[in-house]
């Protein structure tokens, strides 16, 4: 899992799932804000016909922040929704992943979180697969 992947995971993961794993990690590194959490909007774009030119679909809420650990590592948090604590925890994880604790944070937080997100996806995909149909066109009984 590279930085792009873990930031994406932290952005999408349910806030309570991240919070539970963060608390279990039981770390409280000292840090200072480079940008305290702020809620804003991002304009989501689509493509005409699914493949063509871009158009504006509508906005989504996003919360972002940036912090620096006392050791100097800088972490960025970008998460979907308006949860400032989730953004803070995401930035903290991002910063810790750049230091000595990276392997620990990866094994104790990122990997279980990724597994939870994947399990939820698989569950939906299994339900979708159960609704797969085969339509038959009926041959008319002409002589």
């Amino acid at each position: 899992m590279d930085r792009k992947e873990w930031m994406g995971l932290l952005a999408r993961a349910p806030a309570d799932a991240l919070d539970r794993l963060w608390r279990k990690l039981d770390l409280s590194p000292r840090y200072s804000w480079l940008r305290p959490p702020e809620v804003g909007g991002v304009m989501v774009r689509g493509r005409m016909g699914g493949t063509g030119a871009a158009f504006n679909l509508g906005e989504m809420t996003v919360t972002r922040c940036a912090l620096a650990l006392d050791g100097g590592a800088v972490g960025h948090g970008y998460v979907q929704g308006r949860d400032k604590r989730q953004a803070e925890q995401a930035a903290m994880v991002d910063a810790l992943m750049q230091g000595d604790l990276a392997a620990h944070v990866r094994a104790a937080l990122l990997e279980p979180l990724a597994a939870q997100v994947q399990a939820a996806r698989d569950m939906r995909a299994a339900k979708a697969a159960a609704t797969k149909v085969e339509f038959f066109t009926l041959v008319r009984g002409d002589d």
Partner: protein
Amino acid sequence: MYVAVKGGERAIENAHAWLAEERRGDPSVPELSLAQIREQMALAVNRVMAEGSLYDPDLAALAIKQARGDLIEAIFLIRAYRTTLPRFGASLPVETANMRCDRRISATFKDAPGGQVLGPTFDYTHRLLDFKLAAEGEVPAAAKAAAPQSGPVPHITDFLNRDGLIQAEDRHDDTPPDLTREPLEFPANRALRLQSLTRGDEGFVLGMAYSTQRGYARNHAFVGELRIGRVPVEMEIPELGFSIEIGEVELTECETVNQFAGSKTEPAQFTRGYGLVFGQTERKAISMALVDRALRWRELGEDNLGAPAQDEEFVLSHADNIQATGFLEHIKLPHYVDFQSELELVRRLRAEAEAAQQEAAE
């Protein structure tokens, strides 16, 4: 003209307090939580997100609660909130080919590669009231297949595209115009039309789409594909120097395949209408695709039949239920000064007419 009036503070305050009480309803009935609305009124939440033009299910649930279930009022609340948000930027265009589909059907190809997946649909239900829902009880678990629906499924139109049977879409990432930043001007390009339609009133867009089916600029639409599912949203982050996923949204996408006999310059081929809407909102997405197709008459070299659905100024100027509500409902606010002058005018005209009549009689 609306002229400011003074007074009535206490009455207004009392009216709002009563509104809060009525919103709560009978206190012996348990209060709705936002999570209950979000989870159990999901399609109302989806409509509010789509027309409020802001993807945030918790906020939409709050708006629905505050608006006592009046969805246009809820959309109004979301639109008002949206304007207070700083804009962090725009996402990369979402790639719906990568959608993890809950539902994916085609009315044109029964053996669509990737299969037909019904998903959690009202289709094929009997539309009979289910009195079991009136009683509280456990819901039977949904069936799960041993093998999950695997990976992304290709768009159906890709197959037609390969043979040149359908008009191709011109792929580029140029910054599209944004009607939330610049007022809508006519003629509008397709990007603006799609933005306007996706946030337009579901009932209005449905009515316009239906009019094309009934013969007002008929465009012979087939639902080539309808898919509902989640797509990741990716954005370039300047301070990182690369793009990351900032979340994922549920979308409904409808691609129509429409008859096109060809023109002086184009061979006969199929053309497209496109609908893409936040949430599980398939009636809206299909309607959007039909109206999009009708509005494309000029670029496809078709005749303007004078049908309402071909008139972009008519469609786009009236699709927004918040603009419409604002203008419609303002006429119930005090217009005393206006009305006073009208009243005086009518009295004067009547007096003059009466005087004229009397003169003639004498």
